[in-house]
């Protein structure tokens, strides 16, 4: 199964199944406060999963944005750029215009409650001409706002509405930021880790569906 970070190489050699050489903190870039997990690799230690990425793509980004590019990793042969949230829109526009990443394949967020910048914005870019993928990640505080990418890629419109709906991250400059999946008056953002799976917006359920228990 060839991976697609650079030119499609031959399928990877069969690696021993379990790996996890060093319990590296989740690829969250910033020095994670997450307690390192004791990894108990059963088999012999396989090659490291995360390798610092150093190719002409990351070099171009670093020389263009300097400090804004916090880290460049290659995780399982997929290139990841961890950037500062401040230049998020600028980097996106640069990626689309000069680096030819014309398709925003996916845009989502990951919630790391134990970090002080709890949200990770994850934008999955794909370039038709180069047949190459790149993942831009930015760490974001709980209450922080960021710029909307819908001016760069119109497909971000609904994707950002879903992130706002499920995570509560506000995007400045979004044409019509309101909930897309949940009812408009719903309280709470379900995909946050502190939103328990059994929790419902009891008020909304009682008022609209008339179920007393609210469940």
């Amino acid at each position, binding site marked *: *199964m060839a991976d697609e970070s650079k030119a499609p190489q031959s399928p990877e050699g069969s690696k021993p199944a379990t790996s*996890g050489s060093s319990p590296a903190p989740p*690829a969250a870039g910033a020095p994670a406060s997450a307690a390192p997990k004791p*990894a108990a690799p059963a088999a012999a230690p396989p090659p490291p999963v995360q390798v610092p990425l150093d190719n002409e793509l990351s070099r171009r980004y670093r020389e263009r944005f300097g400090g804004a590019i916090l880290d460049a990793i290659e995780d399982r042969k997929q290139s990841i750029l961890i950037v500062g949230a401040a230049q998020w829109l600028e980097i996106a526009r640069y990626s689309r215009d000069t680096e030819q990443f014309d398709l*925003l394949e996916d845009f989502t967020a990951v919630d790391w409650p134990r970090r002080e910048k709890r949200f990770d914005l994850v934008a999955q870019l794909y370039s038709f001409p180069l047949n190459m993928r790149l993942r831009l990640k930015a760490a974001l505080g709980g209450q922080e706002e960021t710029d909307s990418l819908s001016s760069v890629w119109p497909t971000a419109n609904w994707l950002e509405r879903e992130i706002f709906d499920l995570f509560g991250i506000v995007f400045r400059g979004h*044409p019509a930021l309101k909930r897309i999946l949940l009812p408009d008056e719903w309280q709470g953002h379900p995909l946050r880790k502190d939103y328990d799976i059994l929790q419902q917006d009891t008020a909304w359920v009682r008022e609209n569906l008339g179920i007393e228990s609210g469940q």
Partner: protein
Amino acid sequence: MTNTLHDRTLPKADTILGADELVINMGPQHPSTHGVLRVKLKLDGERVIGSECVIGYLHRGVEKIAENRSYQQFAPYVDRMDYVSAVSNGLGYCEAVEKLLMAEAPPRARVIRTILTELQRIASHLLWLGTHALDIGALTPLFYCMREREEILKIFEKYCGARLTTHAFRIGGLQYEAYDTLEKDVERFCKSFEARIQEYSDLLTSNSIWIGRTRNVGLLNAADCIALGASGPVLRASGVKWDLRKATPYAAYDQYKFEIPVGTNGDTYDRYLVRIEEMRQSRLICLQAIENIPAGPIMARVGKVLKPPPGEVYHAIEGPKGILGYYIVSDGGTQPYRVRIRPPSFINLQALDKMIRGHLVTDVVAIIGTLDIVLGEVDR
């Protein structure tokens, strides 16, 4: 590039639609919205001048559930998203987790997976063709398509006991060995299928009313497609010769020769032609695949309890509706930390507002049909 998608000329009201002209509500219980989709249409007489999709009626919080299930336990949920093409959802998820584990399914498993996924693509396109033709008024194609789809569902039932939500694959390979007459069944189906596709195109392709209803309806050129993230047949019909099965081959697609059908001006008629041609290509793939299914094990050694090393992976496959992507983040535990599914129907549906502007109400029905959306996947 400051204009937003929704309402260039409409005043900023509380909702997206200004409420002066005639606003009709299509759905959520509407015979032709393919599920619980509600479209607020703003009409000037018969012409549509604005629209807003209200979705979420079928939202089950699949991504939240994923964070409380182990990797194997979550596999059946994936079938319930796009319930029309459960097998290809399963393929995408299993391959993504295998990539996370940096393991790989054995060749025999990959070939059988390819055969079943291509059969599922034909079944999904058949259901699309039947309901799409029914919306535009042709009553007969629906029953022809259902007859063929029944054959495919029988093969699935023989293989894994289920017809619709099959849960056919496991992480690391396959659960069940191919039953003995699998090759013969698939061969019999593919042999008879060519004549059947000819039956559909005799009924529709050169039918002047069909062309009248679909030519120049729901125009979406290549630039719009890429900007809006539309993928799959919608993208190919606009002239972009691109298919994930060729761009980033997965399963066993790199071993087979097949063409990528491309349309010219991205209207409903081109999307119809592209999907019909795709069915033919999938049939060719199946025929090539059943010639030699390699012997060997059907399951990689991934062990019972899956604890992938911390990290993340994004793996996308070419589903019948478009790019079906899985972004899985693992924190080393037995349960995925975050599973994000890139739903092709959800993103293709976003192009609806752009496509129906200026059309009549009757065309809206045809355009919703041509997008081939499944609300289970849109709402997740």
